[in-house]
């Protein structure tokens, strides 16, 4: 059985290497067959692993050591896999969405000269993402973390001739690196503070983390400081304010990767990280509150920006930011399962929305401005239906998957007793209106109303080929039905002890060993479980709550403004000029970063170069010492004749003096 895990990881890598290095020899069709086939196999094996794990009790886990990475003193670092319910959950999502995107790409990238390269990259991404989620230790986690960042860099800049693309990919990598400082330091804090550590496996770390109650660093509690650093890492990858700036720009990449990397999988790595590290986060009150504030702020304020965007992909990108905020907030409320549940439903419906948007873009001849679309439902019926399904799931329409997960997140925050929970709750509830509004704004502008495109585009407008539509349909199914797992996945029984929840947690075991201080457990999840009375009840309850009304209001306003009454829209736009401007400039984050960090770095570099390097070190010290001695010996005139040789002479004089001084001091 253990080899299966290794095979699951290696299959996509083999595909990536084959298509990447031998793409030309293989040709286009064999390349996509090979990569898609291998990822498909990986998906089937992941499903098998899921089936296998479902036969055990939820706490069953497996540790597979692949090889010893390094031994330093007594610390042993390894490459290996840790498989439990949480891992299996992520493996299935990653490989499934990846497979869908592989198939979709066959149609979407059909005419692209970099066809094989693209398949190689997305397979490589799948490998890296699997390494991340399946890792059993911190160093390998960081490897996967950075490797997905690398592939993201390569894919955003896939069309390397496009100036905006090669700017966006650099920006994405650098902003992610800011977060990585946090992750790396977090890992380092864990290493140096977990005394007697023999390896960096999660379980060992979690068990020993509380042996030393205060950190070496800053004398703060270890979990508090480690978790806040890990959170910074998660904020980079999962694009939380203020490290969110790279995600909207990442839309410069081809649409399939926006679906795979920048919606369904890579950006949720931060959510996964925090869930995986829940034993640490559960003991860090400050961090949990910080997560609540950051997550809910991202959820609401990034959603607002989505309301004024006109590029179909950018709207969905801001929506992704907002939804990542929802997941994050659930983690802050200590209901990790709700965050993961939303991660799962979001992976399906957001991948669906992106791929459907890609289908629209193909139909529109690579036009992405929704102001130039309209009435597409007549020409692209399948895309229309699937986009509608994705939209309904996204806004949380009762019965669709997003409804269950989003409601659960909101309920969780409502029940949380953290000080920041109220703030988070208000923003999340308001966010429901915002989500409904921007989603259906796009939906109405693209598929309904007047046909605003030019005649040429209109003439060629047609439904996308079958290879594009099949993944849409296959993604639409879970986007509708995955909500049914609200009880097992959403409320956490599926995950067993993988997430620190309730009173039967590992944390209690740890306390038995250590007993340094009593850890207050967050009871939010058990409250949530007490409130849950069957799925029908859940739906009914949801339909009587405030978020439901706000969602209907959001859809209604979008319908009224964009389909029914143009004048109201104009009037509103006029009234709200100032806030609109702020939103259109995305709160001026980009302008600030560009002006302060980018320009500042260059300014610093240039001043260092001219002032310190050239003037002080070379000018004053190296040549200046020479100059001074030359002057002292009364040979000022010779200076202009090229002072290098004189420097040499002067240096020798100087050296002799210094040497004499040195010798007298020493003896």
């Amino acid at each position: 059985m253990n080899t299966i895990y290794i095979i699951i990881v290696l299959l996509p890598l083999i595909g990536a290497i084959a298509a990447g290095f031998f793409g030309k020899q293989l040709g286009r069709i064999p390349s996509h067959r090979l990569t898609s086939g291998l990822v498909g196999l990986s998906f089937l094996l992941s499903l098998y692993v899921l089936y296998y794990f479902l036969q055990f009790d939820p706490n069953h886990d497996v540790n597979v050591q692949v090889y010893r990475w390094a031994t330093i003193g007594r610390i042993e670092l390894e490459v290996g896999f840790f498989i439990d319910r949480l891992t299996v959950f992520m493996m299935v999502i990653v490989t499934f969405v990846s497979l869908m995107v592989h198939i979709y790409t066959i149609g979407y990238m059909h005419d692209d000269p970099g066809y094989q390269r693209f398949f190689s990259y997305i397979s490589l991404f799948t490998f890296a993402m699997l390494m991340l989620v399946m890792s059993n230790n911190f160093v390998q986690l960081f490897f996967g973390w950075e490797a997905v960042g690398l592939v993201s860099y390569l894919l955003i800049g896939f069309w390397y001739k496009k100036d905006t693309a090669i700017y966006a990919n650099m920006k994405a990598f650098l902003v992610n690196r800011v977060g990585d400082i946090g992750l790396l330091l977090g890992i380092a804090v864990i290493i140096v503070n977990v005394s007697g550590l023999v390896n960096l496996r999660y379980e060992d770390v979690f068990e020993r983390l509380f042996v030393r109650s205060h950190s070496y660093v800053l004398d703060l509690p270890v979990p508090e400081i480690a978790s806040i650093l890990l959170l910074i890492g998660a904020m980079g990858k999962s694009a939380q304010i203020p490290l969110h700036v790279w995600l909207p720009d990442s839309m410069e990449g081809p649409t399939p990767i926006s679906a795979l990397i920048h919606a369904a999988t890579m950006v949720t790595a931060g959510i996964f990280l925090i869930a995986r590290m829940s034993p640490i986060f559960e003991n860090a009150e400050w961090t949990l509150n910080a997560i609540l504030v950051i997550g809910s702020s991202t959820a609401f304020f990034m959603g607002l920006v989505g309301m004024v965007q006109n590029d179909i992909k950018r709207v969905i990108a801001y929506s992704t930011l907002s939804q990542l905020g929802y997941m994050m907030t659930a983690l802050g409320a200590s209901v990790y399962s709700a965050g993961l549940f939303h991660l799962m439903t979001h992976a399906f419906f957001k991948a669906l929305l992106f791929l459907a948007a890609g289908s629209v873009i193909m139909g529109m001849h690579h036009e992405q401005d929704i102001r130039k679309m309209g009435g597409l439902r007549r020409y692209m019926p399948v895309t229309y239906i699937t986009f509608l399904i994705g939209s309904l799931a996204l806004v949380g329409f009762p019965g669709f998957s997003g409804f269950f997960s989003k409601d659960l997140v909101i309920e969780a925050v409502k029940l949380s007793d953290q000080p920041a929970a109220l703030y988070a709750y208000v923003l999340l509830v308001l966010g429901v209106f915002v989500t409904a509004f921007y989603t259906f704004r796009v939906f109405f502008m693209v598929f309904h109303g007047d046909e605003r495109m030019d005649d040429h585009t209109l003439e060629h407008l047609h439904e996308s080929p079958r290879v594009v539509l099949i993944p849409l349909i296959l993604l639409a199914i879970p986007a509708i039905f995955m909500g049914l797992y609200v009880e097992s996945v959403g409320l956490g029984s599926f995950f067993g002890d993988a997430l620190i929840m309730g009173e039967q947690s590992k944390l209690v075991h740890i306390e038995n060993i250590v007993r340094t201080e009593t850890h207050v457990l967050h009871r939010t999840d058990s409250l949530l479980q007490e409130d849950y009375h069957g799925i029908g009840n859940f739906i009914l309850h949801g339909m009587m709550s405030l978020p439901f009304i706000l969602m209907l209001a959001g859809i209604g306003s979008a319908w009224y403004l964009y389909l029914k009454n143009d004048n109201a829209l104009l009037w509103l736009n006029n009234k709200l000029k100032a806030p609109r401007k702020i939103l259109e400039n995305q709160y001026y984050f980009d302008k600030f970063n560009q002006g302060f960090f980018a320009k500042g770095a260059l300014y610093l570099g240039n001043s260092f170069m001219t002032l310190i390097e050239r003037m002080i070190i070379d000018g004053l010290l190296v040549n200046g010492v020479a100059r001074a001695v030359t002057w002292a010996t009364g040979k000022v005139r010779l200076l202009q004749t090229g002072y290098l040789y004189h420097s040499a002479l002067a240096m020798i004089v100087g050296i002799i003096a210094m040497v004499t001084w040195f010798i007298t001091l020493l003896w």
Partner: protein
Amino acid sequence: MLSWLVWLPIIAGAGLLILNNRPWLHWAALGIAAVTFVLSLFLLLFFDGSSASLQWVERVNWIDIAGIKIDYYLGVDGIALPLVLLNTFITLFAIGSGWENKRQPAQFFAAFVIMEGVVNGVFLAQDAMLFYIFFEAMLIPLFIIIGVWGGPKRVYATIKFFLYTFFGSVFFFISLIYLYQHANGSFALQDLYRHPVGQDAQALIFFALLLAFGVKIPMWPVHTWLPDAHVEAPTAGSVILAAITLKVGGYAIIRFVLPLLSDAVSMYYWVPMVLSLIAIVYIGFVALVQTDMKKLIAYSSIAHMGFVTLGFFMVHWLVGSGGDADIPIVALQGAMVQMVSHGFISAAMFLCIGVLYDRMHTREIKAYGGVVNRMPWLATFFVFFAMANAALPGTSGFVGEFLVITASVAWTTSILVALTASLTLVIGAAYNLWLVKRVIWGEVTHAEVDKLDDLSRREMLMLGGLAVAVLVLGLWPAPLMDIMNASLDHLIQHIRAAVELKGQGVQ
């Protein structure tokens, strides 16, 4: 065995001079380097990694006149072995990169082969004076390489280089004499270790050696010779300079400064540490604004060597602070791996730039853009090595920086050390990726770029070889670390004894 590693290349290199301008000359040079490499592989094969003691010791009385006693004393341990291997490995690539050199080829190849032998001598010498002789002799081929086959401002660069190193060497020499007296007339390193000098003398010698070795590494602010030397040196010279010569400085610190001057290091560790942090951050910013590709990589070398010195000089503190006993070796391992890794990556970066320079005859970043359109293979390697240079996990560049940063987190007095060092994650990525963006990506904007041909088989082989080395060391550093573990542990025991003897912790 060890003598072979030193003298085979030197003597055979001298033989090349006689062969003057035969058409198969470069094959002969490559053959010599290959044989030496194979010899060093035998060393690796039969090396006992579990032992910290010297192996394959050769010791004879060499000079014993007028009370001055110098031994011809060679030996190898876990600290020297990786660097010997790096040297013999990289020399293959240096010769490969100068393959088509037509100007005085005999002298050219001879210089590199002789250089290889002398550098092996530096790493293997166990007698301080013998070390000193090799240490200085190493400069001669290097001066010749830059001075003869260099660029237009080669004389300026050579003299600047010479002045800098000469300045340091003098103090090194005097210090050695003092240490020799103190050790009852022996230059053997193990004798020097056994007779620690007094505290005041240690302080003086500490700063003298810091200057001597700091120039070589180079540490800020005695680094300005390096960018000039790189810019003027031919590609092969840059490869050796970056990959090997800088390591000699780092090696000298771990051989002399750390074990010999425990008292002084315990007291003044903060001086080199601050300088290292300046190298990491400040030099990173300077690298960002370079307009010449070679200068950019030269500055990035300085920043990366900052991690080596940072790792080295925090060891005494870590030992003395009474913290986790496992942490000091993390710092040392990190610094050593960083040296080997930097050898691979900097060599590869200079080779990439050399490939472009051979075709375009300019190193100005502005003259490029959109190279990927014409040279997809070069672009692949360039991006890969730039990522390795930015310490991407999975490449060798990550291992050393990760370990040094980890150890620096154990620094209780201030998290600023770790925080400052970790800024390299962003700054390093910034200058590397911006370079990639301007050189590799984009549309072809210059007519010359449009005419570029992709890598030849020779170039492919070289870059591919280094890429494999970078990947292997990044994905599986265990073998390298296993070689060094015992020796580094021994060094830490030695430092611990010295620190405890002092009877007090660090202020």
